[in-house]
């Protein structure tokens, strides 16, 4: 591909205007939440539902969907699948931005957000799964920042630093996989202590394993979606051929098919282990089957067909279903299947402000992603660093 386009152009594009509007309202809500009316004035959180959308979606789903970074980097650098290298930098960027925005979402949710460092500097509570989540996410965010930095350093032209960071790739990838295994599974482990509150079909002593496997699937799905969108929207930045890109997408479909099949098998074992079959006959059982059949089994099937027949359309639909399924699973665990015995009047639904903050955070992420992709060697190699990772 020819030279990457530089970041010029009009400031008042429709995209910029819409995002600015979204973020402006988000800014007002931010002021309300932090300075005026607190959580009570901006959220629908209650004593029975202390965790809502900001935890269920911004934190839990966000982390699961940012998993593509460790999946692809492990595949390329540890398992020798070098043909997927063009996908590494965009996935690392998605991961880095994703995790950063998870922290932002968390700051909105914490009652005393200014005390975020307390578990590390005041008094750690190592019996808590949340301590482990916090520690691993903090370390992993640092790892992702360093893994992302070569692109920035190439753009800045800081050669020696770039050289140094490049030599750390394998170590960082191993560290990233360790940290990701731990915090992805620990987010599931958070709920191990709530067997009386989480519906039996979603509760399992294997919850950490379920969360980890589904995170891998979610990461693969996000890579397929993000790369498809990037190759359309940032066409001028892309270096690899359309044919090569299609090949890579098809290759990812195989991995996704196997991951989803394994996830389904593990879930079936979870039900069999505690003889929970009879729960499937209830209302919640029906909802569980919707999640499992419509958003796990169906995309698995579509990935299989898409891979065999080399059909990109089926693969992309499957990716969307997979991502939606992961989000649905996290929201079910945190909100919908949580406190399942309580009557409808006491159930929680997010306020419009909670939704708007979430949308604002995602919008900011998209905006920053676009900003970086248009300037830094993410979708193409930097001419001075060709052939090096």
């Amino acid at each position, binding site marked *: 591909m020819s030279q990457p386009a530089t970041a010029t152009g009009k400031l008042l594009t429709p995209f910029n205007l819409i995002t600015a509007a979204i973020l402006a309202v988000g800014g007002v809500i931010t002021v309300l939440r*932090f*300075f*005026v*009316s*607190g*959580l*009570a*004035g901006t*959220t629908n*959180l209650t*004593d*029975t539902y*202390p*965790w809502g959308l900001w935890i269920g979606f911004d934190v839990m789903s966000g982390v699961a969907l940012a998993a593509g970074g460790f999946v692809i980097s*492990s595949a390329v*650098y*540890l*398992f*020798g699948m070098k043909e997927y290298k063009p996908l590494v930098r965009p996935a690392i960027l998605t991961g880095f931005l994703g995790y950063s925005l998870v922290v932002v979402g968390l700051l909105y*949710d*914490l*009652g*005393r*957000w200014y*005390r*975020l460092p*307390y*578990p590390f500097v*005041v*008094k*750690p*509570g*190592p*019996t*808590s*799964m*949340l*301590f*482990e989540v*916090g520690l691993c996410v903090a370390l992993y965010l640092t790892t992702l920042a360093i893994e992302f930095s070569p692109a920035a350093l190439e753009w800045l032209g800081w050669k020696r630093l770039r050289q140094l960071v490049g030599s750390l790739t*394998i170590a960082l990838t*191993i560290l990233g*996989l*360790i940290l990701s*295994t*731990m915090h992805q*599974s*620990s987010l599931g*482990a*958070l709920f*191990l*202590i*709530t*067997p*009386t*509150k989480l519906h039996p079909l979603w509760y399992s*002593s294997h919850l*950490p394993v379920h969360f980890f496997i589904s995170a891998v699937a979610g990461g693969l799905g996000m890579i397929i979606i993000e790369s498809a969108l990037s190759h359309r929207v940032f066409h001028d930045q892309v270096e690899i051929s359309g044919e090569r890109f299609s090949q890579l997408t098809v290759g990812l479909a195989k991995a996704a098919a196997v991951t989803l099949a394994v996830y389904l098998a593990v879930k079936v074992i979870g039900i069999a282990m505690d003889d929970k079959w009879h729960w499937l006959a209830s209302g919640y059982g029906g909802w569980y089957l919707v999640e499992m059949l419509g958003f796990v089994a169906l995309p698995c099937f579509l990935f299989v067909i898409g891979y065999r027949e080399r059909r990109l359309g089926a693969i992309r639909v499957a990716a969307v279903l997979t991502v939606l399924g992961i989000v649905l699973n996290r929201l079910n665990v945190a909100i919908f299947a949580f406190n399942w015995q309580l009557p409808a009047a006491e159930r929680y639904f997010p306020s419009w402000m909670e939704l708007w903050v979430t949308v604002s955070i995602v919008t900011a992420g998209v905006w920053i992603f676009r900003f970086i992709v248009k300037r830094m060697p993410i979708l193409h190699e930097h001419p001075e660093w060709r052939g090096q990772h």
Partner: protein
Amino acid sequence: MTISRRGFLGGLAAGTLAAGTAAASAGVKKLPGWPDSYGLLHDTNLCVGCRRCEEACKRVNGLPEPAVPLGDESVFDKMRRTSKDDYTVVNRYRRADGGRPAVYRKHQCMHCQDPCCASVCFVQAFEKTPQGPVLYHPERCVGCRYCVMACPYYALAYEYEQVWTPRVVRCTMCYPRIKKGQQPGCAEACPMGAITFGRRSDLLKLARQRIRKQPDRYIDHIYGEHEFGGTSWLTIGGTPFGELGLHEGAVPTPLPEIGSSYLSVVPLVITIYPGLLAGFYAFSRRREQLSRKETREAVAAALERARQEAENKLQAAAEKAKKEKEKAVAQAVKKAVEEAKKQAGQTGQEA
């Protein structure tokens, strides 16, 4: 052979003890609570729903007056839960009907022996004291509300409307009063003796006594003795505990044990993954090197063959050239000899 109930329970107890000893010697720890800790006994057969305990609790803790005044029965039309203004609530779980009186139960933090809130707090903002109450340290709290999520008794509330300094709020078992030798406000205020304050071990004895004395009025079970590891608040009565909003059939395993069980995997991941993944990396590098070596060798072999072929061709051509040259030389010699013969013949004739 039939086993008497006592024999069975005794056997179960002995088995549990044996298992506990084995587990303890294997390094698995349990938190049994402090031995001389205080507790409270709630006798639902005696509670009449007067809510004087609620009033006393609010007075002691400086909370607003009850929203629905005492004596107004409409408060029992809905089930209430604790909130930032109500550290304790009394609910009616069964209306009076015919000869049977209504059944009420007071609900508040149970001050568990192995509290979930303490286990899940990532800044250790909860502390189980030797006296029994579980204390909260707001100066450390970050406001993540995992404790509120985890509490199986829905006992914790949060000050969502506080913008800068929200806290978790709940019954404190009147810790300051207990330290001074007083009773908790609710125990002091109860006119029916439905709340008894004392050492937990003494309360268990008292409870068993009441059950033994009136077996038709009491279910033979003290709720909170073993459930989820046991609680400081013990409940007895004639109504099945599941109907009183309590977790009937709860296992004796403390929830923190279940909740933190996964933590033991963390060190395994940290120690196993590096070797495992470095191994994968080395393996994939080796495969790559081998395939490159194979390629090199294949290329070298092909080159060698090509060279050999070229050399053979060259040699064949050289041979051919040599042969032709020899042939040409032989022919030239033959011609010369013939010429010489002819000349010799001519000169012979002349002489």
